[in-house]
């Protein structure tokens, strides 16, 4: 009889252990208290412990930051949100995700002041139907970087002032054998090839997509011709079709190229001895158009938003406000070399020499434009996939510029109609 009870006792215990795994109390690691929130951002945006303590003192909200690989964030958000759960109260919102996330109803609106809108021009990327869904914290303004030392070795004294002078400078670098491939241009089938294509098309022609979201064929043809010519003339490394996009960008820091149109983070990384072999040699230039310096710039920024499924929306809103404040942007720059999205903070950092050669960055940040006439589309991922695969094919010389334009126009029109 006693043995029997022991047996039942063991089975009962097993069931309790098994069922405890299905408990609802620790769902997503969230605490039921509204004074505690979770934050999912990449490690390059994670605030330090002392900053978080300051936030807790100021707001009474404890923020538990989960540094997450950028590549994993979208799938984590998708899976949790599809199950009507918050992946975290505050989530990373890349500029390219905002159209999809908003359409899927996964993001809560965020309040921004008039001053925020004026001070952070890239906020326009996160505006859908008049509402803002995320606040940018990491600047992604594109600028032209030129290696002064290499240009001097090629006998070029002046920085390029338009696209044709850029072309002449690349030829001079090539002819004098200063560098094998003067221009760093990502051609691998991944997001960096898309953002680079969009940047070149927008800066060269001021338009990429028509008002009905279809591809502007003239702009695309011009950009594909630039890539085609770059590969054929030996300005762009043909091996970039297999090289990771960030590695291609970093070619500037490794003295593998003399020119790059890339993210604003290079204003800092090119002058850091740990990451650059060309310290003091790189000059940022405002990206040129055929008529001289472009009146518009383009930014692909990282932002934070609030999950629609968060149970602590008020506390999450406090964090977003704090995280995008001028004070915190300055601290993030000091601790993580993060480039602020606020023009006022950029100006301060340039004035106190924290960012060298930053005047161009401030100017570019003031004129950030939106390459999508109707905001980032909900099917951006499909559009991006079509673009980077076409760019890759032009890089591999499988398609001519004209064929690539026709193919991409057909693909994008198909996606838009879906």
């Amino acid at each position: 009889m006693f043995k029997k009870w022991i047996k039942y006792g063991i089975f009962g215990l097993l069931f309790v252990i098994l069922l405890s795994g299905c408990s609802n109390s620790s769902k997503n690691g969230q605490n039921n208290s509204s004074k505690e929130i979770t934050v999912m951002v990449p490690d390059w945006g994670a605030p330090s412990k002392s900053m978080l303590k300051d936030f807790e003192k100021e707001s009474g909200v404890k923020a538990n930051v989960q540094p997450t690989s950028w590549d994993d964030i979208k799938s984590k958000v998708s899976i949790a949100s599809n199950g009507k759960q918050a992946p975290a109260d505050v989530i990373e919102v890349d500029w390219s995700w905002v159209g999809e996330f908003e359409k899927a109803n996964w993001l809560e609106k965020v309040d921004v002041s008039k001053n925020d809108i004026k001070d952070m021009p890239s906020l326009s990327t996160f505006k859908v139907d008049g509402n803002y869904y995320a606040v940018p914290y990491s600047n992604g303004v594109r600028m032209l970087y030129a290696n002064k030392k290499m240009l001097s070795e090629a006998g070029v004294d002046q920085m390029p002032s338009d696209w044709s002078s850029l072309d002449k400078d690349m030829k001079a670098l090539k002819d004098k054998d200063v560098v094998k491939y003067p221009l760093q241009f990502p051609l691998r089938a991944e997001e960096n090839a898309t953002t680079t294509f969009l940047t070149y098309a927008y800066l060269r022609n001021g338009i990429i997509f028509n008002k009905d979201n279809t591809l502007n064929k003239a702009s695309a043809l011009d950009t594909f011709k630039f890539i085609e010519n770059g590969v054929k003339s030996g300005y762009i490394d043909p091996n970039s079709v297999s090289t990771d996009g960030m590695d291609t960008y970093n070619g500037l820091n490794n003295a593998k190229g003399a020119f790059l149109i890339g993210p604003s983070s290079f204003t800092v990384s090119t002058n850091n001895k740990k990451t650059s072999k060309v310290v003091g040699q790189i000059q940022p230039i405002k990206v040129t158009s055929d008529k001289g310096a472009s009146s518009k710039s383009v930014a692909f920024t990282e932002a934070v938003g609030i999950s629609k499924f968060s149970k602590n929306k008020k506390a999450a809103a406090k964090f977003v406000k704090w995280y995008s404040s001028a004070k915190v942007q300055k601290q993030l720059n000091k601790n993580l070399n993060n480039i602020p999205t606020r023009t006022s903070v950029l100006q301060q950092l340039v004035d106190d020499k924290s960012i060298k050669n930053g005047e161009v960055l401030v100017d570019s940040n003031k004129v950030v434009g939106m390459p999508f006439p109707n905001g980032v589309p909900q099917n951006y991922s499909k559009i991006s996939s079509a673009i980077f695969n076409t760019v890759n094919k032009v890089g591999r010389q499988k398609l001519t510029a004209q064929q690539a334009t026709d193919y991409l126009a057909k693909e994008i029109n198909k996606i838009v109609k879906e």
Partner: protein
Amino acid sequence: MGKIRNKNIIAFALLLPCILIIGGTVFYPIITTFSYSLRNMNLTEGQQNNFVGFENYRKVLTNSEFRDALINNIAILILVVILGLIMSIFVGVILNKSTKFGSILTAIVIIPWALPPLVNGIMWKFIFFPGYGLLNNLLVKSHLINAPISWITSRSLFLIVIAIIIIWRSVPFCAILILANLQNIPDTYAESFGLEGGSKWQSFTKITLPLLLPSLGVVLINLTTTAMNVFDEVIALSGYQTDNATLLVYNYSTVFNFLDFGMGSATSYIIMLLSGIVGYFYVKNMTRDIKG
């Protein structure tokens, strides 16, 4: 009678946790995925989560990117199964012969199998990197080629490269399986065959190989599933390039890049059915040999 009933209750109670875990983690997702596959379940179109029958299957099967991915997977599968099987037997036999360094060699051989697929992919990317990759450098320096070969940019070469990587990763485990089988075959069989005048090759083909059939079945299943599930290496080497994509890369893009869970679930079912058909023939042949 009462004792038998009690035993059944105890057996059922002991099995219940396992049934619940497998039911919850295997069967429930399989059923849920099937129900997703019959819906227009693009997460960015939240309002249109309606039943569409087998429309997603039709869309997947008529999609040119899916067909490209399927062809790529079949090419990789054929190369991996044929070359992987030959290599596994070869390595297994070599390890069985080696007596002095047998244990050290076995430990060395198992290393590639223990490496995570992504690490494998990155390592091989450096080897096959076009232009200044390790292999190109070696070939150019040894004057076997004049100019670097673009290993990854050509689709056919890329598939061969991927097959080589999969073989390199899978052969160790398969060879160890064969080695274990070989070590259970008494030497007396081959010795008797030799006394009857049979050659070593005849001894291998007529005695050793038939006795290896049970483990060869497991080896074939392992090689097939590894070749069907290739993902990390493709991403590490060529990103999301559509003409180099395999079925899993296509499926990942559909689900996690395009957030189309309906199409993604239909693709998963098609992949599962294709794997199931191949697996069915292997298992059927294995059991036939065992019964025979």
